[in-house]
């Protein structure tokens, strides 16, 4: 008798499927009702909320700002994270594990606690401001709390650890022997990077970047705390609209816009991967 493994799947699948479909359908449906404020909503299916989103400058600016800070966070995550990922993947000693552990620790601890650290760091009499003002580099203390730079910093705390872990698995797919071969044939170390490491990791890095970008688009906690109530990205606005203004339908609309932009980027990423596979750019 052969084991019927497919039967194991059924209860779990039903649970996951029902939770996902029911929750998503309910909020998507609600997003089509006219928002009357105070938790009340109209009964007819209309596009009022979406019309408002795409005609109101405020909402469009929020969307544009979300894209901008996510892009910056993605860029800095790549620039800071890729060398670290490369280093960890190529070191052949137990240091690699220690270095990885450092990354994992930072991703495992809730971002709220890290924001405390950032607050202290950038407070007017904190170490950074005291040393910069003391050295005469700045004439008055500066802060990252409540401006776009702060939000980018917050997003990076959310994405950098994860980014390093993903990029680490990308670098691991590049055989060491290719680098050695290039070097034996006389490439300088710079050329090894230019002609071997960068081209071979490009497909993986592209996908990783899209994942990081997606994470940033949906990141709530760090953006909310470092935005300090002055910078609104889409997730921050969603929480505000739902909890403070009690506008469930409008909140649903904002959430729907966020969900579909993220899904769109996911589809783009899948499309890119299949294209690269076809062109045999990915070594797997």
């Amino acid at each position, binding site marked *: 008798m052969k084991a019927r493994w*497919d039967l*194991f799947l059924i209860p779990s699948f039903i649970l*996951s499927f029902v939770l996902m479909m029911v929750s998503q359908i309910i909020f998507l449906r609600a997003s089509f009702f006219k928002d009357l404020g105070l938790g009340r909503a109209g009964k007819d299916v209309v596009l009022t909320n979406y019309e408002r989103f795409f005609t109101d400058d405020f909402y469009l600016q929020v969307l544009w700002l979300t894209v901008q800070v996510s892009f910056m966070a993605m860029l800095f995550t790549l620039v800071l994270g890729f060398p670290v990922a490369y280093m960890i993947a190529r070191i052949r000693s137990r240091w690699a594990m220690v*270095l990885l552990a450092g990354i*994992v620790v930072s991703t495992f601890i809730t971002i709220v606690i890290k924001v405390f650290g950032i607050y202290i760091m950038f407070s007017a009499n904190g170490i950074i401001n005291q040393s910069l003002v003391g050295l005469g580099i700045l004439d008055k203390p500066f802060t990252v709390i409540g401006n776009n730079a702060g939000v980018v910093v917050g997003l990076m*705390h959310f994405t950098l650890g994860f980014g390093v872990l*993903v990029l680490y698995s990308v670098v691991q797919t590049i055989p060491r022997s290719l680098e050695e071969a290039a070097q034996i044939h006389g490439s300088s170390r710079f050329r090894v990077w230019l002609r071997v490491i960068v081209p071979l990791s490009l497909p993986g890095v592209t996908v990783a970047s899209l994942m990081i970008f997606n994470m940033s688009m*949906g990141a709530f906690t760090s953006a909310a705390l470092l935005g300090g109530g002055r910078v609104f990205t889409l997730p921050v606005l969603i929480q505000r609209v739902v909890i403070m203004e009690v506008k469930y339908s409008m909140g649903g609309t904002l959430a729907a816009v966020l969900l579909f932009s993220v899904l769109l980027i996911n589809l783009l990423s899948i499309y890119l991967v299949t294209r690269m596979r076809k062109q045999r750019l990915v070594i797997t």
Partner: protein
Amino acid sequence: MTISTPATGVAVNGAEPQPRRRPGFRIPFSRWTFFSYCSLSYIFLLSPLVIVIGASLHRGTRYTVVKFPPEGISFYWFTQIPQAHWDALSLSFGLAVLASALACCVGIPAALGLVRSNIPLKGLVSSVFRAPLQIPSIVTGVAFLQMYYLFGDLTGVYVNGTFAGLLLGHLFVGIPFVVGTVGAVLQRFDTRLEEAALSLGASRITTFRRITLPVIMPGVYAGGLYAFMVSFGDVPISIFLSAPGFTTFPVELFYGMENDFNPAVLASSTLVILFSLGLLLLMQRIVGLENLLRSGGGAG
């Protein structure tokens, strides 16, 4: 070969054709420039944690003074952690334990079914299990809140702001991690081990308990740990599903951030940092970090 290897001379960009020792990696700069650059990421990621721990040890009894580096070491603030924080911590802990345990109960059979059966549309089915990771948490939070309201309107039972409501939300985001990690282990599983046990007369249940389960255990630990940590640190879902006076620790901190920033808060945060660190070390002992990461969790 390792970090402790001395630098191979002062290398100018790409001007060094033959390194003296064959290095494990190739970089167009001197390796100390490279290491210093990489250490920036570590400083960036870990300094906030060091600062929180340091500032929580500050010796001083004034509520408004937060100092780093601390002037004198004391554990005074650890005795001042408010009751609300202890309540929130125990709620968070209970929630994370139950959510990750349930995620394992749901995720293990799902992974077994996905890897070992030949059902049609397998890709679609597995994407249903992965979906919660693709949906931004804030959207999940809003969606679950509205689902609970509708459910409440229909049945009169409102689960938002209750333990059950929070648990369901956390379970939803925990399942994909377990399915991912256990699935990754199962894909490398040598099924001849099971066949051997069966042909030697073990029952299916004994085979599962004595062979299958021990082999997939690293995946279960890894997935469970991810699910635990995601639940334990979650804000965007819990913020919608908790009620005033009934909140998880991160949400409590989140709301307290503006008006309630004092060394006692840092003390409870320090406890959480040390707890997370301890849990990670324990996992490293049990399954090894390499296994923890190889099975893919967050990356999957």
